[in-house]
């Protein structure tokens, strides 16, 4: 085959993948959710719940986290709080000793979050499991809102909404503003996916599962909040998004920390394919199209973008359309470089202030 034809084929394929993931799929999803939504029958139920927190060296935030849960408007007699310390070497154990009687504690040697969650579920006494982290806080009515969709027997899991302090925009934090915009977009996708069936994972900061649908996590699991809900989806139940169940968190303030967090998340998405290859089978995975378009598509886009850049550079002298595509990408990456400068400048200002 002619080399130019081959490069053109790569260009158009890469463009199609990128456009489908960021334009085509969201458009399809919006239309699908509008034309054929699957309603969830919510009721103000208050089943007994076991709240599980896996913590490693979270003493600084643990007390506030426990107080926040105790201040919830959920009936305290229906609420078991379990904190699993995963090899903490800070005063976590002292804090847990202080709350003895109100909080069930499990002290483990370091084994990773998945092992800690498995241990937490083992001591859970109730049929609804609620998972959260030590760092966030809940709105007072978050737990009631979180379990309301479980009144629907088809619902096996519920993801709440995590509100980041950077979502409102503004400030000097470049990464905060960018992540806030990304997170809003991501939550919009999750809402639409929930409307037509199931979300493709939950928010680790606030989600609930029926205990009967829980399957212990492999110890190496990176994304427990994707694997556990996807196992529920594969069992045939729905996992839905509940926007009125709110948790609050701060975004990692520095680009390096956020980069590390994203690396972990995306490594976890690759790992999910290895841990649950059934997700790739259309007749087994009830949300196959959404999974391929959202999760797999996100993993493919970086390579598509690279290919797009190389191919448009190679073809830019052959046709104006490729020259325009190349110029557009150069402008975009130039803008991103300016964003990096703004981030560096913002951090320098913060360092001066502090």
């Amino acid at each position, binding site marked *: 085959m002619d080399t130019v034809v081959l490069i053109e084929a790569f260009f158009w394929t890469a463009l199609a993948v990128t456009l489908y993931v960021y334009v085509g799929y969201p458009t399809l999803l919006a239309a699908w959710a509008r034309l054929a939504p699957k309603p969830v029958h919510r009721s103000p139920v208050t089943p007994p719940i076991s709240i599980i927190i896996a913590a490693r060296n979270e003493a600084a935030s643990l007390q506030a986290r426990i107080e926040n849960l105790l201040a919830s408007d959920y009936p305290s007699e229906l609420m078991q709080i379990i904190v699993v310390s995963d090899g903490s070497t800070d005063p976590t154990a002292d804090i847990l000793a202080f709350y003895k009687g109100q909080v069930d504690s499990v002290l483990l040697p370091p084994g990773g979050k998945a092992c800690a969650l498995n241990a937490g579920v083992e001591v859970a006494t109730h049929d609804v499991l609620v998972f959260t982290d030590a760092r966030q806080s809940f709105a007072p009515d978050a737990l009631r809102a979180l379990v309301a969709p479980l009144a629907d027997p088809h619902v096996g899991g519920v993801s709440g909404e995590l509100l980041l302090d950077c979502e409102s925009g503004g400030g000097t934090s470049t990464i905060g503003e960018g992540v806030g915009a990304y997170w809003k977009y991501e939550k919009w996708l999750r809402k639409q996916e929930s409307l037509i069936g199931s979300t493709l994972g939950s928010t680790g900061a606030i989600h609930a599962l029926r205990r009967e649908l829980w399957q212990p996590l492999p110890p*190496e699991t990176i994304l427990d909040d994707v694997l556990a809900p996807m196992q529920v989806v594969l069992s045939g139940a729905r996992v839905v998004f509940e926007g009125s169940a709110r948790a609050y968190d701060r975004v990692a303030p520095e680009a390096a920390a956020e980069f590390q967090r994203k690396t972990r*998340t995306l490594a976890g998405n690759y790992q999910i394919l290895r841990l649950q290859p059934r997700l790739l089978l259309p007749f087994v995975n009830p949300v196959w199209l959404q999974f391929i378009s959202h999760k797999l598509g996100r993993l493919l886009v970086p390579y598509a973008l690279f290919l797009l850049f190389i191919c448009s550079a190679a073809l830019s002298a052959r046709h104006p359309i490729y020259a325009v595509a190349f110029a557009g990408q150069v402008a975009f990456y130039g*803008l991103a470089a300016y964003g990096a400068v703004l981030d560096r400048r913002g951090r320098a200002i913060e360092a001066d202030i502090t």
Partner: protein
Amino acid sequence: MSAIIQRLARVSFTFVMMNVAAVSGLVSLSLGRRVWR
């Protein structure tokens, strides 16, 4: 106008960073680096 460009620059930077992180995630997983706690 400048504020809009700065906002676009911030979002573009984050978008690029997330795509680089996707590649970095695959590399980390392939090399068996610990990316979880």
